[in-house]
């Protein structure tokens, strides 16, 4: 039943972009080539600023780790916004819930006096629980998503994310308040295999940094491939059909409400995972890590890579973060002042968002017809 209906949807052309005809695929190779060249150029840029010396690879690691964390988040947001057309401006809430739940369940210190808290479950279970809780938050987000037009939805979701952040800030016994949580990094690092240390020595870096990178990219590949496979199933085709024409889907007897709800939950779970990764990357968290700006950064990653594509978040993450860190380094060398330098980085992000959404809304890899640009 499921399969048959979605084929009907595809055949009717309702789910635009569902049936990948060979000619459409052929049209996409220039974009892929450009994306590939840009990723290589990004690596070369970092290497060049280290004079192609032995520190080149080591300099790339923190950037690629950040890229992985944000790309995982972008994979979740891309499912909601790119494939599902839901303008979620409050995505950072999933990351906050994911980060806090994970850390709460493993040994850590928190609060003004850094008091010790024992672990409750092993790390892997903690992350899974965090993903479940984040997906339950998706359930809350689904209530406005079903009822409101996308601009109101955007505002409500920012508001919900801010409520989550402000509440985390003010329930000190649970969350450590403004002091947040720290001292949990070893919970991930204790699983680091010896070979990572050896490898790290060979490329002039430290084991924990390389291990973070590996874990981040493994998560990214699993999420990316998982979502890519999911989008090939009847469920994925139905989701894109809901995005393109909700009424047509309803007329075929399918329920768009349920699929939106599932999208917010799955995307939320991935957001929770990215929050856990962010927590380990930062090695301490507090509520102000999860300001609304983070959502906008994740949005920028989605938009740069290509809204509604499988590999867009990964490509976008690398290019976005190399651009950001390299220009940041360039500015602080030439402008001097660090606060002005970091401000200029944000200006660059804003400029990128405006230019890309206006001139190339499909980003590097996307197709214009896959990007929802009208309010619905």
């Amino acid at each position, binding site marked *: 039943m499921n399969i048959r209906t979605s084929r009907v949807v595809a055949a009717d052309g309702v789910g635009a972009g569902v049936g990948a005809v060979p000619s459409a695929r052929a049209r996409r190779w220039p974009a892929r080539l450009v994306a590939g060249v840009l990723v290589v150029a990004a690596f070369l840029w970092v290497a060049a600023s280290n004079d192609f010396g032995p520190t080149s690879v080591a300099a790339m690691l923190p950037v690629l780790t950040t890229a992985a964390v944000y790309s995982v988040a972008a994979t979740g947001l891309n499912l909601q916004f790119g494939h599902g057309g839901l303008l979620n401006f409050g995505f950072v809430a999933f990351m906050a819930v994911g980060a806090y739940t994970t850390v709460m369940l493993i040994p850590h210190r928190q609060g003004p006096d850094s008091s010790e808290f024992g672990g409750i479950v092993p790390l892997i279970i903690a992350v899974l629980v965090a993903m479940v809780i984040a997906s339950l938050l998706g359930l809350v987000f689904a209530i406005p998503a079903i009822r409101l037009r996308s601009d109101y939805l955007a505002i409500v979701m920012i*508001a919900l994310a801010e409520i989550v952040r402000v509440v985390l800030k003010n329930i000190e016994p649970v969350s450590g308040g403004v002091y947040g949580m720290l001292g949990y990094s070893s919970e991930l690092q204790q699983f680091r295999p010896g070979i990572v240390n050896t490898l790290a020595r060979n490329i002039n870096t430290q084991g924990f940094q390389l291990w973070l990178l590996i874990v981040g990219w493994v998560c990214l590949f699993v999420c990316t491939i998982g979502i890519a496979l999911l989008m090939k199933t009847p469920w994925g085709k139905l989701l894109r059909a809901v995005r393109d024409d909700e009424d047509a889907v309803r007329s075929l007897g399918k329920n768009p409400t349920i699929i939106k709800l599932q999208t917010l939950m799955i995307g939320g779970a991935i957001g929770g995972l990215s929050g856990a990764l962010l927590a380990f990357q930062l090695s301490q968290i507090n509520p102000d890590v999860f300001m609304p700006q983070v959502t906008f950064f994740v949005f920028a990653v989605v938009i740069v890579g290509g809204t509604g594509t499988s590999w867009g978040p990964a490509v976008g993450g690398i290019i976005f973060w190399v651009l950001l860190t390299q220009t940041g380094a360039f500015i602080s060398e030439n402008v001097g002042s660090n606060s*002005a330098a970091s401000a200029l980085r944000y200006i660059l*992000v804003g400029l990128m968002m405006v230019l890309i959404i206006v001139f190339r809304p499909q980003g590097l890899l996307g197709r214009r017809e896959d990007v*929802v640009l*009208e*309010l619905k």
Partner: protein
Amino acid sequence: MLDQLSNGILLGAIIAMTSVGLSLIFSVTGSFNFAHGDLVTLGAMMAVLFAAVLSIPVWLALIIAVAVGAVVGFLLDLVMFRPMRRAGVGGITMLVATLGLSLIVRYAILAVGGPEPKTLPIARQHVTSYFGLGFTRIALIVIVATVVILVGFGLFLTRSALGTAMRAVASNRTLAAASGINIERIISTTWAIGGALAATGGVMLALTQLVYWDMGFQLLLLMFAGVIVGGLSSPFGAMVGGFVIGVVTQLSVTLPYIKDHNDLKIAVALLAMVLVLFLRPQGLLGRRVRLS
């Protein structure tokens, strides 16, 4: 309790002042402007720049700041939004573009002005009792000025030819164009007035508190709350909504747990907004508008 009420009325006046511009631009252009909060900051910073740095008399600096706000609004439309309208971009494109603009304006203010809080060169104020509520004299002036400006603006919208044309464009652009209204001219005028209203709000913030580089963005969600609670289709809605949100925000500080955790008042205000969107999407004063 009474202290919080007077704080709430002051906050409400500022939210009302700033959210009227937001609601005006939304109703005429059909797009929420996420950069509105940063235009508010810009107004406050301009007031500080002219009064404290360039040593111009405060009253004149405030007027110049409002004029700069109008010019900035007009220029934004000219270089950014008009070309986008010409290209026929969709609502989500507009929304993301204003989001990008808000990052640009906010961090440009930070890069130029630095992170330190700033003040206007005005004497320290003492709290006096008016009608049983304690206000500083400046706070009282700000509240009265807000009411006067907003009532004047309401009259402008309903009585003047330009205001009527703006409301016509807001309610039906095609019909307005058919009856000979120059749509583009009305929209660019709207941006100028919206910019001026934002700067006026910023000036009032500068008069009553320290000026920070991200103060407008902090206030943006409360402005949205004011607009949504008041109702989008009514010119007076944003004004009433702003006052309601201001008072609700400050009065919530007297609630048991929030008393010791003042930050939570923002959560209460935002929750109020979300509830209004569900229970009465047209707002307190608005007529039923289409929500999908």
